[in-house]
């Protein structure tokens, strides 16, 4: 019972922290400040199906893809209570003249906000004219009105929905940008070798990036989305390798080769530095260098160090895994190697990821590790300042490699159930867990920075 209470008080603490984070920016909309806390009461949002305009036979397919993507983006944002489609008032509003605002504002929809618009094609372009209206303020309802257009394809229909969703979230989400256009990089063995793959944040558009054969691990996308760092085994052993997403090919990174044992790269939040594990002097230590590979230096001095992650807020601290006292634990240090602090008090703790606001570490922890011990490997979030933690996954497989979304509201992670590894996503409080990959064995997700 005490444990249960403790658990809930921690949930509350994290939700509170997330709420504080969400409310901090000065340019938050008026109605957010007068509304109650985001953590307790989500914004009731209606999303009308897009109105198809014109006789293009492809429009129904574009509309179906757009509607499903928009509703999913808004539902999974973590800040909305979506009006079920069956509660929507009759009609498909395509413009401010056509919206039945009183119908949306009253039962059963009871929406605070309504998103709607019209989808049309012309000259090979797909265009969405979208609006966001405040249903409780009929005198001056418009919060957002914007036109989105691009080449007419199904992918574009999804992209326009992502952009509209991100614009809605940017206005209603307390100043944090949405994540609908972000990517997740991961490892998959579905071609027979372990290669780096990419997908949209919602699991759509899964595609292979590297084709090196063998084993490639630990993908980490640079903050500007231009380069993908990862480790790969070759004739000389393990190297940190680089793939340019601008050039769509491998590019040289000589600093990541020496010693044949280079693992787990990590970009600093400004993209200027890389940290990684290297055994070039004999033992696996944490090294840092400039993004070009220059200014290479060793930060740690004991065995078995891996999995660095930078504090992306300050770029002045690194969290990592060290087995210096036996089983691996999470530590933090300044980026010059000083001021080492042990964060976890036992068990088997691995794979830290630093939250975008610098306040939390998420990691994988088996608190009762050992031969025959009943412990499970679960994802946890820890408040850096207080070392208080919250368990995010419970009784579901073996969980590893958490990675924060850039808005800090979501965590993507690897879950293995019965020998099948897959990529899952959840809100940062552990709720709304669902699988993103449904094919092959997939590992080590990494969420893009924007």
């Amino acid at each position: 019972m005490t444990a249960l209470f403790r658990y809930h008080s921690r949930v509350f603490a994290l939700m509170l922290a997330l709420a504080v984070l969400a409310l901090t920016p000065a340019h938050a909309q008026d109605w957010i400040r007068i509304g109650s806390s985001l953590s307790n009461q989500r914004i009731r949002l209606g999303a009308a199906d897009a109105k198809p305009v014109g006789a293009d036979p492809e429009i129904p397919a574009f509309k179906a893809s757009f509607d499903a993507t928009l509703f999913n983006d808004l539902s999974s944002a973590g800040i909305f209570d979506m009006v079920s489609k069956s509660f929507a008032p009759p009609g498909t509003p395509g413009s401010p003249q056509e919206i039945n605002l009183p119908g949306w504002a009253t039962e059963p929809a009871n929406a605070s906000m309504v998103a709607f618009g019209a989808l049309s094609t012309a000259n090979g372009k797909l265009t969405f004219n979208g609006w966001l209206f405040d249903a409780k303020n009929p005198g001056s309802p418009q919060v957002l009105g914007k036109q989105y257009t691009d080449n007419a394809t199904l992918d574009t229909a999804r992209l326009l929905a992502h952009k509209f969703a991100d614009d809605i979230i940017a206005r209603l989400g307390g100043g944090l940008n949405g994540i609908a256009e972000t990517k997740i990089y991961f490892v998959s063995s579905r071609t027979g070798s372990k290669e780096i793959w990419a997908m949209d944040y919602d699991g759509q558009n899964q595609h292979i990036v590297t084709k090196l054969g063998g084993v490639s691990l630990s993908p980490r996308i640079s903050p500007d989305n231009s380069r993908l760092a990862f480790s790969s085994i070759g004739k000389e052993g393990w190297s940190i390798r680089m793939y340019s997403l601008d050039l769509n090919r491998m590019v040289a990174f000589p600093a990541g080769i020496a010693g044949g044992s280079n693992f787990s790269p990590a970009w600093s939040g400004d993209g200027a530095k890389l940290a990684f594990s290297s055994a070039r002097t004999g033992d696996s230590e944490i090294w840092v260098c400039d993004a070009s590979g220059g200014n290479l230096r060793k930060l740690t001095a004991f065995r078995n160090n891996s999995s660095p992650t930078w504090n992306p807020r300050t770029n002045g601290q690194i969290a990592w895994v060290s087995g210096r006292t036996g089983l691996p634990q999470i530590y933090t240090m300044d980026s010059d190697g000083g001021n080492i602090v042990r964060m976890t008090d036992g068990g088997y703790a691995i794979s830290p990821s630093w939250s975008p606001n610098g306040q939390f570490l998420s990691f994988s922890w088996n608190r009762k590790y050992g031969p025959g011990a009943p412990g499970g490997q679960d994802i946890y979030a820890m408040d850096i300042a207080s070392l208080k933690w919250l368990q995010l996954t419970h009784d579901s497989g073996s969980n590893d490699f958490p990675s924060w979304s850039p808005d800090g509201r979501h965590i993507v992670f690897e879950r293995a159930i019965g020998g099948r590894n897959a990529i899952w996503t959840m809100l940062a409080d552990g709720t709304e867990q669902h699988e993103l990959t449904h094919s092959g064995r997939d590992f080590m997700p990494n969420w893009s920075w924007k």
Partner: protein
Amino acid sequence: MIAKSRLLTSLVLSVAVLAVVGCGKKEKPVAPVETAPATGPAPTAQLTATPSSITAGDQVVLSWRTTNANTIFIEGIGDLPSSGVKTVTPTVSTSYHLVARGDGGSADATARVTVEAAPVAVAVANDGTGNSMSADEQFHANVQDIFFDYDSYDVRPDASGALSKAAAYLASNSSIRVLIGGYCDERGSNEYNLTLGQSRASSVKQALVQAGIAPDRLRVVSYGKEKPFCTESTEECWQQNRRAGFSIDR
């Protein structure tokens, strides 16, 4: 069609989310618990034989661990304490069967040791000419895997025989360069296990260097848990994966 099923998925998801939110205040559903007899907790038994494959005349270390048992024995060996280690020298392939009995029932575990007849060629391994074994066969007969304890990279006392044999072979075959691979069992993180495998391979390299082998003949690579020798989720299999393995570095 895809869009329809995606919409359906979204709807189902949002319903599921509502359901989850709805029980947020309640205790989460209790996971199925293993049923134990009313008389007491069920015993558990684990048994490993290391190495699990030997040449006749070599020693095997049996290690076992049991819980909630008051009668423990290995068939053909006799009664034993609840956990411990015992060295045996089987001359033919043998399955060791551990039985643990307690108030809550009984449990058993089996470890198999495969015994190969001693190759005659070992005695003339450094001769090189007129030998029926290939260079790789000679190498593997003389330079054998070193096994490690759980989450450890310390070379165990029971590895000293294999290490001296390997060092002697490498000393008399000075042209051979060696790749030492560090391996881990399937548990834990890929990334951390790469450092653990690194330390295991390094420990073995250090031991060979101390035995007089030039360090520049020995190259180390960690495979972590990426290249398991054995893929079952059993302690016996895990022990086979917790090792340093050798190959000729060409």
